[in-house]
């Protein structure tokens, strides 16, 4: 093959490698037993080269974008190459090592050999519904050390040369609450790694090892070049912002998160120095997660028009001393790590909002707003566990209102569980799922998006709820004169309608038959001075009931329209 042919062969191989990530993603989605995987798409899957450089990744959520390559690198540091064999599958969820987030997110990794040589790794990371620990659903709102949060897999073999490590499987079975689901996910994850391996090897067999490796280099370098092109259009300078996490689940707070974003001609630096020390409660995240958050912001801001690979992230630097809320050390509890992660990403976008209008929005409801509801079905004694993140309002932009009823920015393809499925599978009746028009969306020339009220009637006792609602005291910010949005909260009423409790973060709050749980998510911040709001658009909002007449009068100084 001549050289002119080679450059196009490399293009063809590059496309094939990118397609592998997508194929693996679909394979895992379709065979999983956990709703958190198949509905929330709370997983990522992909392939790296022998050294752990990310080649391709299929993502349900951006949050795992820094974890697969990190996981492979952890294994490479732990095992020498003569300890790694074809048919091995490793399992890893150590939160403080590369590839870890919280214990519920389990990374499975498989080496890919061609003619006895290690050429690549396939890896995935998925949220398993149950991994043991002190609370049902494993992640906890009030854990104070990681040992309460479930089983830890420090990068060990679950398959050795193709043979399952039965002792480990038995151990998992004995330590989790829903062993059938957990082991089902384990097998589905293992099977999907094979899909990636087969596709990768068919590329190597077809084009040969040398040119395939050359194509990988070319693919990664291409990512870097695309990023550098986009850098030319970015503003240069340094911008700072601060935000807080109100509370850590065990009564401490607020905690400060601080960032300085620097964009130069060839670097993008996120410096989180000055962030508070790690919290006693489980809202901490580790360095690997912080890198994922940084990559998410980076991809959204730089928009390189290239698939996310190692090459895309060469210009990205993340700085933060050890032992902060964002770089927690063992044994800090981390099961609600997503609160720190979302905050880290949001504060970086806040720093950039004024210089990147049209790319970055005002503050969003800003929490994954997850609940763990456990109980038993009224029709049988079967127990259930509902793990569900909730939708809320996004921040406005320079030329648009905030999106309403959307999963938290950074939650990607996470999708809601249909009401008809919720009711069939869990012991609740949904009485309302609609926009919260009582809490005003952040006013502005463009207003924030609306939050949502979810009303769940508990059909049988005993039942209890743990909740992980952040941003319950400090509202999402407006930009450029736009007003702040509203906060997230939960109210519980008994069957007579009397208020039993009002909270954001709670653990195992006891529920009785007939109780009504109202989950209310916040609205986004506005953009621009409300007095510049277009009158027709305001009238449209009133007609549609997105905002009330009173709010229009008070926030927009709008006198009642004469019809």
């Amino acid at each position, binding site marked *: 093959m001549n*050289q*002119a*042919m080679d*450059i196009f*062969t490399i*293009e*063809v191989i*590059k*496309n094939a490698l990118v*397609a592998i990530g997508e*194929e693996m993603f679909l394979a895992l*989605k*379709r*065979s*999983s*037993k956990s709703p958190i995987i*198949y509905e929330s798409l709370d997983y990522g899957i992909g392939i790296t080269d022998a050294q752990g450089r990310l080649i391709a990744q299929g993502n349900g959520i*951006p949050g795992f974008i820094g974890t697969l390559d990190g996981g492979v690198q952890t294994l490479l540091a732990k095992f020498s190459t003569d300890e790694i064999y074809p048919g091995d599958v490793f399992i890893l969820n150590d939160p403080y090592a590369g590839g870890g987030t919280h214990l519920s997110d389990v990374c499975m990794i498989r080496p890919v050999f061609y003619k006895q040589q290690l050429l690549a790794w396939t890896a995935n990371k998925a949220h398993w519904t149950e991994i043991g620990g002190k609370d049902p659903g494993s992640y906890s709102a009030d854990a104070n050390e990681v040992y309460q949060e479930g089983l830890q897999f420090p990068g060990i073999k679950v398959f050795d040369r193709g043979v399952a490590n039965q002792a480990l499987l038995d151990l998992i079975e004995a330590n989790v609450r829903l062993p*059938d689901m957990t082991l*089902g996910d384990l*097998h589905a994850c293992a*099977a999907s790694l*094979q899909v990636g391996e087969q596709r990768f090897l068919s590329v190597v067999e077809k084009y040969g090892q040398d040119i395939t490796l050359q194509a990988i280099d070319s693919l990664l370098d*291409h990512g870097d*070049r*695309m990023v550098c*092109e986009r850098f030319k259009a970015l503003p240069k300078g340094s911008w700072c912002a601060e935000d807080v996490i109100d509370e850590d689940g065990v009564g401490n707070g607020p905690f400060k998160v601080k960032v300085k974003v620097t964009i130069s001609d060839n670097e993008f630096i996120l410096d989180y120095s000055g962030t508070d020390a790690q919290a006693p409660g489980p809202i901490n995240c580790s360095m690997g997660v912080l890198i994922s958050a940084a990559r*998410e912001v980076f*991809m959204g801001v730089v928009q390189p*028009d*290239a698939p996310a690979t190692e090459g895309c992230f060469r210009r990205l630097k993340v700085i933060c001393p050890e032992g902060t809320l964002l770089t927690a050390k063992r044994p800090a509890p981390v099961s609600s790590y997503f609160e720190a992660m979302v905050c880290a990403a949001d504060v970086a*976008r806040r720093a950039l909002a004024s210089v990147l209008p049209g790319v970055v929005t005002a503050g969003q409801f800003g929490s994954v707003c997850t609940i763990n509801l456990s109980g038993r079905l009224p029709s049988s004694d079967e127990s259930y566990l509902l793990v569900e993140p909730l*939708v809320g309002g996004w921040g406005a932009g320079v030329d*648009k209102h905030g*999106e309403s*009823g*959307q*999963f938290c*920015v950074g939650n*990607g*393809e*996470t*999708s*809601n569980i*249909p*009401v*008809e*499925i919720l*009711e*069939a599978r869990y012991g609740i009746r*949904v009485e*309302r*799922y*609609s*926009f919260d028009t009582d809490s005003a969306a952040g006013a502005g020339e463009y207003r924030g998006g609306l939050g*949502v009220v979810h009303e769940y009637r508990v059909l049988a006792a005993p039942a209890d709820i743990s909740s992980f609602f952040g941003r319950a005291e400090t509202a999402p910010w407006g930009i450029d004169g736009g007003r702040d949005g509203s906060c997230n909260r939960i109210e519980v009423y008994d069957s007579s309608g009397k208020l039993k409790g009002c909270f954001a973060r709670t653990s195992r709050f006891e529920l009785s038959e007939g109780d009504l749980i109202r989950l209310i998510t916040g609205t986004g911040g506005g953009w621009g001075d409300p007095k510049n709001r277009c009158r027709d658009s305001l009238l449209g909002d009133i*007609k*549609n*009931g*997105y905002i009330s007449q009173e709010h229009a009068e008070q926030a927009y100084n709008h006198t009642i329209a004469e019809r």
Partner: protein
Amino acid sequence: MKLRVATDVGGTFTDLVYINEGEIQAVKSDTVYPNFDQGVINAAAKAKLKLADVSFFAHGTTVVINALTERKGVKTALITTSGFRDVLEIARGNTPDIFNNYYRKPEPFVPRYLRRELSERVDYQGQVLQPPRLEQLDDIIEDFQQEGVEAIALCFLHAYLNPQHEQLAANYLRDKWPTVKVICSHEICSEWREYERSSTTVLSAYVLPPAQNYLDTLKTQLSAKGLASDPFIMQSNGGIATLQAAKNNPISLVESGPVGGMLGAVAYGQLINEANIMALDIGGTTAKCSLVHNGQTRITTEYIIEKTASTAGYPIKTPVIDIVEIGNGGGSIAHLDAAGSLRVGPESAGSTPGPVAYGRGGKQATTTDANLFTGKINPENFAGGEIKPDMQGVEAAFQALAEPLGVKAIDVAHGVIRIANANMVNALKLISVNRGYDPRDFALMAFGGGGAMHACALARELNARKLIIPPMAGVFSAFGMLMIDLRRDYIRTQRLDLKIDALDDIQQAFAQQIKKAESDYQSDGFSTDKLLHELFIDARYQGQEHTVKVKVDSLNLEPKESIASISAQFHKAHEQEYSFQLPDSDIEIVNFHLVSYAILDKANLKGQNKVAADASAALIEDRAVDYDDLGIHQASVYQREKLCHGMNFEGPAIIEESTTTTVVEPGARVEVDGFGGLHIYLEDRA
């Protein structure tokens, strides 16, 4: 004389195909905007058909998808269960463009002020918790009338299990407001997931008046010209429907355009006894493909319009043939990205300005230009000889790409074809390998303007058993319509554990669906002896979400054997699709799916008689053709129209006809079948 006629309205042409005493004929006429029915009448006139002689008239139309994508439907309102008016706008809350902080959700087809709630409730088992308070509809009617609403969609929770409340509310509305169109979710979709069902119902209501008007006008016009019976209408599920059935549920026509070609593939496969086909349709801007296995197309209700990598689109849960579509066609533009890598598509030069060769101002090289530049398309026969291609312009366009890459113009043309082919191979893998099917067990059937040009290279790459280039590729969709039956799909969510004591329930579920099918077809004028039923279940392992479709053909055995046989088939199908079985897991049925056909009498096509193998009568010339990675070869050029049944010859060859060019690689062998189709066997695979 009893004629059978099919017409297909496309964006540019209205195709008409008819069978007269076993002979098939076709004409093309311009599509007339916005009076599509006039284009149909013109095509019939062009073919000199007397509609009074026509016994069967089938019609494919894009009127529904056009009304949706051009937002030309009517002012539509939605009534939901109390507490759920915002389900339509919240949608699934997902952000497909995962890194994008500036994502915009698709705007709902019904604004919030036209979404109203009714106090009523049914639980997840179909039990009534609260009867509907119908008097609440009075205020709603008044408001909707003031707003000028023309169609109302009703979608209540769990109506897929118990449609009673939707029926009561619909009757009330129709009674109080006879002129408004009302459509209920259970009339279109009996599957769970309230957002998808709401979206489907809303889009159905939105297109109901324009689609019904169109179908009524068509009927009137055709009948005025002498057509005695009503035309049949092509649906997205791969069957046709009576005019009345289509009027009741026009959303079922939404994808009738793209599926048309796939039907042609099924129909042609039946003619030549080919039941396993990868059908590939390469047009100007996209390539579409779909798998036919054992003569059956795959049906999905996970169909979403306007969905892209960056936006969520609008789901429509109506049965649609499962098609994978990618942005790669003849007009796809080759360009260098910011980092200097060559990419092909998804931007297309369309028909204006079109490829550089058209000389209409296009400056960027396209896939079609690459096929011209490498000599695969004969410049003398470009676009049926109607355009003299601007070869200088083509060369300049490739030269412009070649310089920054440091290669020759011809190398870039090769590169464009290879990258376009690789994109298409990836799409074909999605419908085959990714679903557990081995391409070696399938014939690749290629059509559309670009299919025959690329197919040989694709078949080689995929190791397909053989390649078939059917005749009438230009009117393939209309051809397919002539050959098919009426089809109705009944899909209903009803969860049931697949255990021995469930057999009664299973039989009952299907019996109910069959009863409904018989009654529906009876109102179409078809007696039960004309009906053919196929039974399927969508099932999954307990606890899983996604289902596998399994054909049920053993309900009359002993209970134990029946259940064992269905279970065994399920395990097998699961392994095929997902690469593993869980033999110890319980199996749960989620949906019952009945496919009912009303079988029509069809005309037999007369095949040609076989002639001697020598194809030299069709030979035009020899010409040097650049076969990309296979090098430059002196190819024999044949004229398609002169090839007869039984002729065969070997590549390198080119076969020309007015609408397309077939590229035959060196070493491949071509045989002509009795209907004019080309069967191409690749080297070592004959």
